[in-house]
């Protein structure tokens, strides 16, 4: 059963959002995508801080927003807590008062402070505590309001790199304990890995893919997710038939192995599967392309080589190999790829 279900369209100047998102009972979902993809906008639609042009939002089967039927539950009655990037703590209240605000003045405040190890800070004001502590207070405040769902908007965005890791694991432990369905918005793949049991990838106002992180890495459905998994990624057109076939990306034709598919497909390729040579090779590889080196990026003992082979193509070779090939920008090389190296999926 879906705890949280969202289907929303919203047109803003220079940006259109059209997203469908489903979070299952008791799961933590990461809403992951580049800056400007519309992640925060989607969160504010769920929380009720803004209204979609068209759409339906339901929580535990209860409609929160249904533009067709004129339903728009105000944010205060949605039982969805939203935790902002910098915590958005009330600066005029103490830590205890902040948490009590969520608990509606109830007795739960002190209990939450203790559970999150904040009891010693109860009398402090938000500006007197560290950024990591502020995030914990914000979480305590959100959980104290006994939300049916919790939304976290870039919860580590305001933290410096050194505290980030610690706070990230702290928050995850608390969330696991709290068992509140959670959607966490992030553009950081590490956040998504650590927090998301499932990940929804958002690009340009759309959810392009939902699944576990390994599912997404295995078969990304958009350039952003593929880039993070370190894969070459193309939208291709697959010839009909079975077994060895041509997949066309623009003017380039790759030979790939695929069954039960044809037409529009995704094509992913691990850069390590690309072999480079100075002379035209005579090996068993099905795909041999002449390419120009655009640039080189040294990653420890390996070198990432970006090529122009009619389509953008990345290869990863060892440092020794790169030196032996005298690779430099502008250099002409031959790239060979086995047909079996391509992942083909729809």
């Amino acid at each position: 059963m879906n705890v949280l279900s969202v289907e929303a369209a919203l047109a803003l100047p220079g940006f259109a959002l059209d997203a469908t998102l489903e979070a299952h009972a008791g799961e933590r979902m990461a809403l992951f995508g580049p800056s400007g993809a519309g992640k925060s906008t989607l969160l504010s639609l769920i929380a009720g801080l803004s209204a979609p042009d068209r759409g339906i939002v339901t929580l535990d089967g209860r409609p929160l927003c249904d533009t067709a039927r004129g339903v728009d539950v105000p944010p205060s009655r949605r039982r969805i807590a939203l935790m902002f990037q910098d915590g958005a703590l009330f600066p005029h209240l103490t830590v205890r008062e902040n948490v009590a605000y969520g608990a509606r003045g109830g007795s739960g405040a002190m209990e939450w402070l203790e559970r999150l190890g904040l009891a010693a800070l109860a009398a402090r004001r938000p500006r007197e505590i560290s950024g990591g502590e502020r995030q914990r207070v914000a979480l305590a405040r959100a959980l104290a309001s006994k939300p049916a769902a919790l939304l976290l908007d870039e919860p580590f965005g305001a933290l410096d790199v050194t505290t980030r890791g610690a706070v990230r694991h702290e928050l995850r432990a608390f969330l696991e304990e709290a068992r509140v369905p959670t959607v966490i918005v992030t553009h950081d793949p590490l956040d998504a890995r650590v927090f998301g049991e499932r990940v929804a990838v958002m690009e340009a106002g759309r959810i392009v893919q939902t699944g576990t992180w390994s599912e997404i890495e295995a078969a990304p459905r958009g350039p952003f997710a593929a880039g993070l998994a370190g894969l070459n990624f193309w939208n291709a057109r697959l010839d009909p038939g079975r077994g060895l076939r041509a997949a066309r990306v623009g003017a380039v034709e790759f030979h790939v192995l695929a069954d039960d598919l044809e037409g529009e497909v995704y094509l992913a390729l691990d850069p390590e599967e690309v072999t480079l040579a100075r002379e035209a090779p005579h090996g068993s590889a099905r795909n041999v392309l002449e390419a120009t080196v655009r640039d080189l990026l040294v990653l420890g003992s390996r070198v990432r080589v970006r090529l122009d082979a009619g389509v953008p193509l990345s290869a990863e070779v060892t440092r020794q190999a790169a030196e032996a090939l005298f690779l430099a920008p502008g250099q002409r090389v031959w790239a060979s790829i086995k047909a079996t190296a391509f992942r083909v999926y729809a």
Partner: protein
Amino acid sequence: MIADGRQAGPDRRTRRARHIVWLAASCLFVAAVAGEACAARPITVAGAASLTDAFEELGRHASGQTRVEFSFAGSQTLRTQLEHGAGFDVIALADSTPMNALARAKLIDAPQELARSRMVLVAPVRTRAVRSIADLGRPGVRVLLAVSAAPAGRYADRVLANIGADRALGENLRRAIEANVVSREADVRAVLAKVALGEADAGIVYATDVEGAKGRVRVVEIPDRLNVDATYWIATVRGNAGPEAAAFVRFALGPEGRAILARHGFRH
């Protein structure tokens, strides 16, 4: 960031409107200053508020070579202004008291009697509440007088004192009228204006004031035995005034001036 179309930021249209207002105001200011600078120095005549209409006509006829500018206000305001160095050339007030004070202080030349007026009751044409002086004391009637510092206020106080001393009307009526006074206005023109607007049921003003509010106020005569003579005095200001100022005073006191004042209801 949470995007929200319903939240407001600075409004550019308002800002543009403000710029336009600033521009317009600056243009008006520059035009006014430039216009002022072009004219030759006129003489300034300070006149009691009740002389406004008569003096403006006087100014049109007397002008000749020099331009006459007026400053109309309550007599007590003009007196204070002159005492503190206002650049008047001629002053005409509605009572001998402030004139004598100015003369004693050697600020003006010997005052000359300019004209006389009488006090009358005025009432809005649309109401019938006040038809005689006795009606002023009826419950709920709203009476306006000028502030005691103004001559018209002092004259009104004297009319009330006369009512109190009158055998037929008596002290009780005077007290009832006092109780009905809802405001003491800054000058006599304010009394007239608010009666004309219908905000008060009656006011005591100069007979000569009524002209300007004809059609909107009714006049109820105050019997002679209760009435007082309001005397207007005129004088040139010492040290400051040139021959044009003396000429204006002569014109006002001469046959033409008298005729104009008479047309506005003043007596001699």
